[in-house]
C-alpha cells in the first residue's frame, strides 16, 4: 500500500517536472547575470549581455566586435570635434512611444547622474555636449578629437526621455521603468535569480524565434552542466574545461566553441627598482633584470604556447602573439607566430649577464577566467627549464587586483579582454606611459614607458580617418610587441553546449549569449 502511494507520488512529481516546454520557449543557464535592470548602472559584461535584450545601443557590434548599425544607421565625423549620428526611423519603445534623438540625448546625460562603482561615464568621457538637430539626427561635440566615440557608444543603451532623472535601480528592477526598444520586453528579475523576457512584436529588426526567454543564473559550473543534462535548460554558457571533452564526445549534446576576447598576458615590471626583489643565491641582483629586453625576450622564447593550449588548457585556447585576437581593429598581420626556443632563450639570458638565472616572484589570478591558475603554474615550470627559480602564486582576484593597483608585484599574469574590439582600449590602458592628465596608462602597472610607442599610438587616437588610424594602431602593436612591453600567452576560448539538434547559433567572440541570435534547429 505505502509502496504504491510512494510510486504514484514519485510519478506525480515526475509529471510536474517533465512538463514539456513549447518550442517557442528558450531557457538558458548562464554563469552570471545582471546587477540591475537599469542599463546605465554598470559596465559589467554580463550586465550588458542581459540588458541588450531589452534595450538597444546606438551602435551595435557583430560577432567579432566590429561596429555595425544599431539605433544609429550611420555616423560621420563632421569636423574635428563633432560626430553626427543618423538615427533609425520608425522605432518604438515597448510602451509605444516613438524613438527619437531626444531619447539618445537624455540617455547620455542620465549616465553621470545614476551610474555606480562600475562607472559608465567611461563611455561618455569624450562627450562635451549633445545637440538634437532633428528627430533623427544627433550631433555630439567631443572634448578634443575622439575617433573612438562610436566604439564607446556600443554600450550606450537608450531609454525613453520620459523616464525622468529621478528613476533609480528600484524602479527599473520592478519593471516600471524597464522600457527599451530591444527585441524582448522585460517581465521579471531578481538579483542572482532568473530574468524572464517576452518577445516584443513591434521590434524594428528581425523577429526573434523565441516567444519567451528565461535566463537562469547558475554560477556553479557543475550545477550548470547538470541543469543542461537533466533538461532544465536548453543551452548553457561557460562549459568548464574539465567537462568539455566528455561533452564533446557525448552524442546527446552539442558544443559550440569560439575564441574569446580574453588573453592571458604576462606583465614584467620594468621600473628601476622592482617591487619584490629579484635575487640570486639569496642576494638581490643589481638593478632590475626585467629592464633588459634580452631578459624579456628570453622569458618569451621559453614559453611553449602549443603545450599551454593542447595540454594545459585541454585544447580550449589559441596561441597569442599580440594583445588582441585576429580581426580586431589594430591587430597587426606583420607579427608572426611566437617561437619556442629554449636554447636561444638561455643564450639571451647569459648574454644579458644572468647565465645562472635568478629567483623571481610571479603572481597570477586564480578565479577570473578558466585556466588562469594552471597556466600560471605551467609558466613557472617552463621558466625553470630556463634556469630561473620562479615562485608562482595564484591569488583570488579580490586580493590580486587591489595589490596590483598598488603596484606591489614584480611580475604578474592576468587576463585582459579588448572589450571594444579596437586597440585604443587596450593600449591606452595597459601600454601607454602612465599619464593621469591624458587619461592613459591607468592599468600600466609595470612602469613601462616607450616614447616611440606613445607617439605612434597618440597620433592614432587623434586621427579621425579610420584607415589611417588602423595603420597607426597596427604600427603601435608591432612596437609594443617587439619590445615585450607585455608578453601575451594564449587566447582563451569559450564553450557553449545544448542538447544535440535542438538549436543553432554562431558563438560570439565577446562571449555574449544573445537569445535573439539563436534559432531552433
Amino acid at each position: 500500500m505505502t509502496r504504491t502511494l510512494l510510486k504514484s507520488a514519485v510519478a506525480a512529481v515526475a509529471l510536474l517536472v517533465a512538463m514539456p516546454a513549447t518550442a517557442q520557449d528558450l531557457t538558458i543557464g548562464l554563469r552570471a547575470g545582471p546587477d540591475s535592470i537599469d542599463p546605465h548602472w554598470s559596465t559589467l559584461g554580463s550586465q550588458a549581455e542581459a540588458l541588450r535584450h531589452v534595450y538597444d545601443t546606438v551602435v551595435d557590434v557583430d560577432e567579432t566586435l566590429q561596429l555595425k548599425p544599431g539605433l544609429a544607421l550611420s555616423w560621420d565625423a563632421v569636423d574635428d570635434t563633432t560626430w553626427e549620428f543618423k538615427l533609425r526611423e520608425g522605432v518604438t519603445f515597448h510602451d509605444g512611444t516613438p524613438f527619437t534623438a531626444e531619447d539618445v540625448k537624455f540617455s547620455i546625460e542620465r549616465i553621470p547622474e545614476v551610474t555606480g562603482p562600475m562607472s559608465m561615464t567611461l563611455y561618455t568621457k569624450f562627450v562635451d555636449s549633445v545637440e538634437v538637430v532633428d528627430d533623427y539626427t544627433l550631433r555630439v561635440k567631443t572634448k578634443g578629437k575622439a575617433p573612438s566615440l562610436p566604439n564607446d557608444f556600443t554600450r550606450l543603451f537608450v531609454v525613453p526621455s520620459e523616464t525622468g532623472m529621478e528613476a533609480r535601480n528600484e524602479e527599473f528592477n520592478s519593471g516600471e521603468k524597464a522600457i527599451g526598444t530591444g527585441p524582448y520586453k522585460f517581465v521579471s528579475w531578481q538579483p542572482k535569480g532568473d530574468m524572464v523576457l517576452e518577445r516584443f512584436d513591434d521590434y524594428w529588426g528581425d523577429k526573434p524565434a523565441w516567444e519567451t526567454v528565461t535566463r537562469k543564473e547558475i554560477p556553479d559550473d557543475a550545477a550548470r552542466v547538470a541543469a543542461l543534462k537533466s533538461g532544465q535548460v536548453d543551452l548553457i554558457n561557460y562549459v568548464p574545461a574539465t567537462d568539455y571533452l566528455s561533452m564533446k564526445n557525448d552524442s546527446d549534446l552539442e558544443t559550440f566553441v569560439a575564441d574569446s576576447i580574453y588573453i592571458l598576458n604576462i606583465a614584467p615590471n620594468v621600473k628601476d627598482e622592482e617591487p619584490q626583489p629579484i635575487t640570486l643565491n639569496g642576494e638581490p641582483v643589481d638593478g632590475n633584470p626585467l629592464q633588459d629586453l634580452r631578459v624579456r625576450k628570453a622569458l618569451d622564447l621559453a614559453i611553449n604556447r602549443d603545450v599551454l593550449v593542447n595540454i594545459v588548457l585541454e585544447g580550449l585556447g589559441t596561441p597569442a602573439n599580440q594583445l588582441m585576437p585576429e580581426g580586431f581593429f589594430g591587430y597587426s598581420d606583420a607579427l608572426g607566430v611566437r617561437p619556442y626556443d629554449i636554447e636561444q632563450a638561455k643564450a639571451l639570458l647569459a648574454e644579458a649577464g644572468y647565465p645562472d638565472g635568478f629567483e623571481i616572484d610571479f603572481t597570477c589570478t586564480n578565479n577570473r577566467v578558466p585556466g588562469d591558475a594552471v597556466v600560471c603554474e605551467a609558466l613557472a615550470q617552463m621558466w625553470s627549464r630556463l634556469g630561473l627559480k620562479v615562485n608562482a602564486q595564484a591569488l583570488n582576484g579580490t586580493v590580486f587586483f587591489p595589490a596590483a593597483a598598488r603596484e606591489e608585484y614584480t611580475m604578474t599574469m592576468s587576463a585582459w579582454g579588448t572589450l571594444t574590439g579596437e586597440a585604443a582600449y587596450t593600449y591606452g590602458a595597459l601600454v601607454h606611459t602612465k599619464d593621469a592628465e591624458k587619461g592613459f596608462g591607468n592599468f600600466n602597472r609595470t612602469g613601462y614607458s616607450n616614447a616611440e610607442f606613445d607617439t605612434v599610438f597618440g597620433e592614432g587616437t587623434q586621427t579621425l580617418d579610420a584607415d589611417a588610424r588602423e595603420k597607426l594602431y597596427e604600427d603601435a602593436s608591432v612596437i609594443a610587441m617587439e619590445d615585450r612591453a607585455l608578453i601575451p600567452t594564449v587566447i582563451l576560448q569559450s564553450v557553449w553546449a545544448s542538447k544535440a539538434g535542438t538549436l543553432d547559433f554562431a558563438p560570439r567572440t565577446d562571449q555574449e549569449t544573445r537569445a535573439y541570435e539563436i534559432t531552433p534547429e
Partner: protein
Amino acid sequence: MFGFLAQRLFQAIIVVFAMSIIVFVGVYAIGNPIDVLIDPGATAEIRDNLIRQYGLDQPLWRQYLTFLGNVAQGDLGKSMVYNISVVDLVFSRLPATLELVLVSVVIATVIGIPAGLYAGYRPNGIAAKAIMALSVLGFSVPTFWIGMLLIMLFAVNLGWLPSGGRGEVGTIFGIPTSLATANGWSHVIMPAINLSLFKMGLLIRLSRAGMVEAMNTDYVKFARAQGLPDGQIVFRHILRNISIPIVTVFGLELGSTLAFAVVTESVFTWPGVGKLIIDSILQLDRPVMVSYLIMVVILFVQINLSVDIVYARLDPRVRLKGGK
C-alpha cells in the same frame, strides 16, 4: 527571567559592534572596493570621483562613524553592487534559505533521533550497525559531492526531480514559500536531504551514545524491574534525560546551517542568501557583508536563547538567571 533576557540583549549588542568593526577593518586591510569593482578602461579621474562619492577617501574611523550614524537612523545602507537597500536585498533571498534549512532540519530530526535511539537500544543488531555506518558517511563525505551524486541519479539519469532552482512559490499564512506547492516540494526535497545528511549523522551518534549510556543506569534498571513497557522507558524517561546535549548540538547546527548553507545552495542553484554573501565578499560589497553578519549574529543569539529556554523546560534543575 527579565535579568536573563536583558543580559542576553546586551551581549548581542556588544557582539554586533565587535563584528561590524572586524568587517570594517578587514575590508579596509584588503583594499579599496573600487579597485575590485571598477572597469578596466576607467580613467584615474573616474576612479577618484567614485572613491570620493562612496566616502572611501575618508579615514576609517570616520567611515565607521558615518555608518553607525546611519544605522542609528535605521538605515543599513545600499549595496554598492546592486544599489538597492541591503535589507531588501537580503530579505529577498532569506526566505528561500530559511525554508530549505527548515525542511532539512525536520528531516534530520525525524529520521536521525529515532534511528539513533534504535541503534542505542539494540547496539549489536545488524540494523544498528547499518545505521552507524550511514551516519559516518553522512558527516564524512563532502556535501557538494553527495549533492552532485543525487543530481546525477535523480535528475539526470532517472529524471524524477529537477536538478536545481526553487519551484513555484505559493503562500502559507501570507508567507510566500515554495512549500505551498507540489512543484515547490519537488525542488526543495533533494537539496534539503543533501543539507540534512551531516546533521542527521550527528544526531544519530549523539542519541545513540546517550541511549547506550542510559540503558545501563540504575533508573532504567529499576523501571524495567518495575515492569514498565520498553516504549514508555525509552520515550518518557531516557529521551528526556539525554536530550540536553541533543538540544545543544541541534541549536548550534541550526545556526551554522542557516549561515553556511552556501555549498548546497550553489550545487542546487537554490536562490538563497549564501551565494549572495559569498559574492558580496568577493566584490568587497561592504554594506551587504556588514548587514548580513548583523542579521546572522542576531539569529545566533535568538537560537541560543531558545536553546536555553528549552533547557529549562527539559531539566527543572536549570534556572534562567541574569549574571553569575
